[in-house]
């Protein structure tokens, strides 16, 4: 499997096929002499911002610490739960339970859900 072609930036789907963002980053673990392994899929604005510019990444991380709706570190999914299908990447989690949908849940409860007809 090729990471850039088949994994990075692909749509993430939870165990029910629900969209939960995209693969924004991949964490590789490197140990001297050992074959490198991909250990996590990373999702979130901090990861995205860092791809544009390291300073932007730090800025967004600072914002996340002040206003974050979830644990402040980028959300990481262990590789054991990840299944790349070529078309997208399925993960064995419940989207609703993850930080990936933290803003979605907050908006649903506090903003969108309060508007009639939602």
């Amino acid at each position: 499997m090729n990471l850039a072609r088949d994994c990075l930036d692909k749509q993430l789907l939870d165990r029910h096929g629900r969209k939960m963002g995209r693969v924004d980053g991949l964490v590789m673990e490197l140990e001297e002499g050992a074959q490198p392994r991909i250990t996590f899929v990373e999702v979130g604005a901090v990861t995205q911002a860092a791809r544009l510019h390291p300073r932007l990444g730090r800025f967004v991380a600072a914002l996340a610490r002040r206003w974050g709706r979830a644990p402040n570190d980028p959300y990481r999914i262990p590789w054991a739960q990840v299944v790349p299908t070529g078309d997208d990447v399925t993960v064995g989690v419940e989207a609703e339970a993850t930080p990936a949908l933290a803003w979605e849940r907050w908006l649903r409860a506090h903003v969108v859900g309060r508007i009639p007809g939602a």
Partner: protein
Amino acid sequence: MKKVFELALGIVTSVGGFLEIGSITTAAQAGALFGYQLVWAIMLGGLCVIFLVEQAGRLAASSRRTIPDAIRERFGFEYYAVLLVVMALVMLLVLGAELGGICIALEFVTGIGYRWWAVPVALVMWLIIWKGTFSFIEQGVSALGLVTVCFIVAAFILHPDWARVAAGALPTLPTHERARYWFIAVSILGASITPYLMFFYSSGAIEDKWDESYLGVNRIIATVGMSFGSVISIAVLVVAALVFLPRGIRMEHYQELARLLTDAFGVWGVRLVAASVGIACLGAALEITLEMAYMIAQGFGWNWSKNQRPIAEARFSLTYTIVVILGALVVVTGIDPLKLTVFSMALTAATLPLAIVPFLFLMNDEHYVGEHGNGWLSNTVVVVIIGLAFVLAVVTIPLEIFGGG
């Protein structure tokens, strides 16, 4: 056979994408100043759009992805972010122009200044998106969009010399006001070939759950749908040539548009102009608002679909709400709608390559289009369009200084 009813997607994309304030005003200006000479520009724009839209549909049907999905996946978040920011800024201005168009239409029938209509129009449009499903919006705008056929009827009532209209299909050099001629030609192309039109079509194809079996129907829909918009634009040009040109009305102020159909329909003329402009601009405003929200949601991988309830996709719903508010703000600032239209079309043309160049790669990448990739003709047309876009971008600025309004 049922698939042909999907024609509605083609018509709505056409009514909003092809036929909107930019194309209506440039067609009217073309007719008012140059008679039938610029029919070729409308046809050229229409032909380019048919090719682009057909390819957009083919990409969606083969890859089960929208164009924004595919661009992020193939070219990475970094490129996507740049494309998104640029397109969002341009689309916001165009949205302002389209909302302005709806407001102008309301001014025509009520006499109340267009700026006052900005907030109520924005609210109504927001409600349509909030409560309506994609199918409802698609079919509703298509059905209402048929009112624009009144321009074709008017053209027949006014008895043009059809041989001379047909002669306009061949490009000819202007005998007077050369800079203005080319400026309008460039504006007509800039108004027709818009990235949001193709992106919206691909999002719509995914909303309507197209797959490979839709490829043939896609060709018909793209052709018929976009031709519909072109034919109406040509009719607007013809009517303007018959009504404005003899009177020396130069279509330099938006209020002049109101008189376009009075010769043909008497008292009903103003109402029909208002209905046509209002609905076409409503279609465009809906399309742009949705497409901005789609681009953001698809790029970030959120849940998105107009066929779900707003509460199921809070971020998507919030996004289009903010877009509507920003669009209304643009109108409320009181920028002259005609100037805003012209400026936003030039910007659209200038930024077109950012979207079309990656698109061209996708249309030739088997990971996305499989065996349905572009043949030499489709590729050539797209390359020509990219070249045209660069020319449009470079040339519009000086032409705007020397020839524009």
